[in-house]
């Protein structure tokens, strides 16, 4: 179970807004975290606490394939991203690096900036404590569950390689 404040953003938040290209000169998540969401909200990285959540509209993470984007969110210690929908490369990147995300259109639409959330990641149950509402997020397909339970893509690949040998 994770608890935190939800920070609300709109539709089509692209990877340039999550982490501007000028910061793609490092791969360190902690360093990237300082500039997370800077274009959309310059003070974002200063005001959030570990476990807080990003709540967004449609097509979150669209644009470039830069893994620096989910790394900056993870580096900041955010607990979860909830969105109406995710751009596909960003979605894959989150699964691959172990950054929790949930797709839940109604929860994302209803949320207001600053709402408090309790989320059960295993069950995909999102509780908006401020509004007293509960939502069931889309479950991950089995195939993706295997990657998640292996601890990300590289441990999954290692296991496969070991079987192959």
């Amino acid at each position, binding site marked *: 179970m994770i608890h935190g404040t939800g920070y609300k953003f709109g539709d*089509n938040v*692209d990877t*340039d*807004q999550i982490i*501007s*290209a*000028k910061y*793609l*000169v*490092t*791969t360190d998540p902690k360093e990237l975290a300082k500039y997370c969401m*800077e*274009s*959309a909200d310059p003070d974002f990285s200063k005001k959030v606490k570990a476990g807080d959540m990003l709540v967004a509209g*449609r*097509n979150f993470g*669209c*644009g*470039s*394939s*830069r*893994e*620096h984007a*989910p*790394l900056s969110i993870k580096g900041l210690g955010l607990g979860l991203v909830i969105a109406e*929908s995710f*751009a*596909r*490369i960003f979605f*894959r*990147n989150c699964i*691959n*690096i172990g950054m929790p995300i949930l797709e839940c259109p109604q929860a994302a639409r209803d949320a207001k900036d600053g709402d408090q959330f309790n989320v059960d990641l295993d069950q995909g149950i999102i509780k908006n404590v401020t509004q007293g509402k509960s939502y069931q997020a889309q479950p991950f*397909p089995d*195939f993706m569950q295997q*990657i998640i339970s292996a601890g*990300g*893509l*590289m*441990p999954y*690949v*290692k296991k*496969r*390689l070991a079987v192959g040998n």
Partner: protein
Amino acid sequence: MGQTAMQKILAAHAGKTSVEPGEFIMAKADLAMANDVTAPISIKALERAGITKLWDKDRIAIVFSHFVPAKDILSAAQAAVAREFALKYDLSLFFDEGRGGIEHSLLPELGLVVPGDVVIGADSHSCTYGGLGLFSTGVGSTDLAAVMATGEIWLKVPETMKFNYRGKPGPWVTGKDLILFTIGQITFDGALYKNMEFTGPALQHLSMEARLTMTNMVIEAGGKSGFIEADAVTEEYLKGRAKRPYQIYKSDPDAIYCANYDWDISGMEPQVAQPNLPDKVAGLSKVVGAKVHSAFLGSCTNGRIEDLRIAADILKGHKVAKGLRFMVIPATQNVYRQALKEGLIDIFMEAEAIVSAATCGPCLGGHMGVLGPNEVCISSSNRNFPGRMGHRDSQVYLANPAVVTASAITGCITHPDDIVGKPTIKAA
């Protein structure tokens, strides 16, 4: 039941006779690609997993493109990580600074991607290659690391949307205009997770380069991949260029599409995407006169030799507008050399444009012409999100090379006809 070409390509790479949309498959890749910005994260992921044996040293391309030449100390240090890796593993497709250019222009130019391939690239515009009749998609660095290690990738077979273009493109209407129009119609996430198949008689009038511009921007509609069936135009392009044998796949007449679009493009005017989304598309006449401070010709979308020829033809005998700067960046070293041979670079410099070495440069606000607060740019590139090319309050219009060049001459968005009357060369 009929299959799309994309289903056939993915089935062949998954060792199956057929695949259905929505099905998860493990597909064998023909080529994996990363650049100077995405490779270092892949390398870290491989190191963390303790993987020291790579899939195939002749099938992993590393192309330096984003911060070329290194823009500062950090980017130089980052490039060094990728360079050391490429040298250590003796990667035959390592294109260092000075040896290549922008990956999405370079790989087709060198015949390293061919019809029927599965190509996985750690860059979102890796969808470009689909214009050659293959499956290619962009992924993140960890996905790419897995391909580097195994030669395989997990994929969900995408549904396919079919776009049929009829009629003959008018003067100044290029592949860029067709794809901008399409994105404007289906909107920014209209093709989310989907394959976009482009077809129809109008494509016969488009060069291979113009077709690659179309598939380049499927990601701007959320698409997973783009596809144009290989035909005589493709085969002519591949002649003397293809580095591997290839197989041409065609969609069956009774293939299932999740959406069908059919447009007559006769009479279409050049299209422009307005700030701050690539789907905010309007006909050129609606935005003519908007003031711009900067113009950029280049990027993986429109930095090929054909684009430079169109621009030089308009620019000849003119000067760049006072108070405006015009960046011209050939997409690859070979494009640069060809432009030199043809006298195009001389035309650009005579007009007082800035010409630089092959790099992604200002397209992503990296370097080489970054925008300041409230500045407006007209660009031949592919994205115009807030802050894409610099300051968060800067703005970008996306257009074809002819419109960018005409606007560079006047300092406001301008129809090429207003500079040269009617076109003297065929706009591709």
